């Protein structure tokens, strides 16, 4: 909006916005004067402004009808009916028909994410007890047990290979 006008509306980065603001009466007075000076000398911008202004006037043809005279009465009747409804029904209505359109999906998304996590956790728990990890732990214990046995056997074998102790030798050499 702060670019020098006019660099032509069509070339300026904010030209389209300036054009809209001018036609809707939202352009600052200083900018209006600047634009009006520019369109006096720039045929292209003058044409753009005229086209937008014509569109504006065409759209003005469409007037909305007057609101029904009993609008308020009907609304108050609905409010009264609601106030008479049971509290749980009013609570459900507030939940399913929120005043802030985005209010419902956010807690719903959080609830869904929590449910998915909880279900995932519950599904994963039994698996921990029975399948892949448990056997591997047992296998590790068995492996450790095997290793101890192997070591014991190896020691026995070593023992067999070991020459008799001097005490044994002494005993056997004893002529009695």
């Amino acid at each position, binding site marked *: 909006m702060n670019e020098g006008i006019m660099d032509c509306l069509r070339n300026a980065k904010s030209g389209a916005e300036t054009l809209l603001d001018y036609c809707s009466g939202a352009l600052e007075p200083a900018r209006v004067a600047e634009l009006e000076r520019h369109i006096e000398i720039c045929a292209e911008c003058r044409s753009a402004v005229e086209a937008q202004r014509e569109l504006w006037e065409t759209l003005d043809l469409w007037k909305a009808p007057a609101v029904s005279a009993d609008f*308020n009465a009907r609304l108050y009747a609905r409010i009264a009916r609601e106030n008479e409804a049971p509290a749980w029904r009013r609570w459900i209505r507030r939940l399913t028909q929120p005043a802030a359109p985005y209010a419902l999906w956010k807690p719903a998304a959080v609830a869904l994410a929590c449910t998915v996590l909880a279900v995932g956790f519950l599904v994963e728990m039994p698996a921990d007890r029975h399948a892949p990890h448990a056997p591997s732990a047992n296998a590790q214990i068995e492996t450790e047990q095997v290793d101890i046995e192997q070591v014991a056997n190896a020691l026995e074998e070593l023992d067999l290979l070991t020459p008799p102790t001097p005490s044994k030798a002494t005993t056997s050499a004893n002529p009695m």
Partner: protein
Amino acid sequence: MEAIAALERDAELMLRVRAGDDTSFGVLLDRHRAPVVHFLYRMVQNDAVSEELAQEVFLRVYRSRATYEPTAKFTTWLFRIATHLALNWIRDGKKEKGQESLNDAVEGMERQVPDRQPTVEQEMLYAVKLKEVREAIGMLPEKQRAAVMMHKYEELDYSQIARALGCSESAVKSLLFRAYEALRVRLRHMA
């Protein structure tokens, strides 16, 4: 300054409604009823449906009075609810069931030109033009239509429209530029 005072007054009135003052709700209703109904009328192009949806807008405001916090402009909040309801109604396909035929434009026109007696020719010409305007607007994608209705007819600024549509201001500008460009092309022959 007047606009700011009005906005503050809306918030103040709504805070009073929160405190249990139903008279203040009536004041808010009187102030905002017509813009909301007119916006919805142009969105759904159906007189009865627009009033029904507008009632729903105000009902939801009333329902949430207890939790109201003046964090945004009251008007923006209203139009956010109204836009949401209108877009849902359009998407639900109720449009086909309940929409007034565009041929009924003549009936609408009779209500809309009350200031002087038009000739039959003028009436017919007006009806044809009005039908074309409604058709051209009806052909816009929903979000573009909502943006144009709020900008052109309800005179909301870019930031208000952005909050009502749940998008950025630059996205709103982009929606508006494309919408007005499409309308210029479709309605060029009427100039």
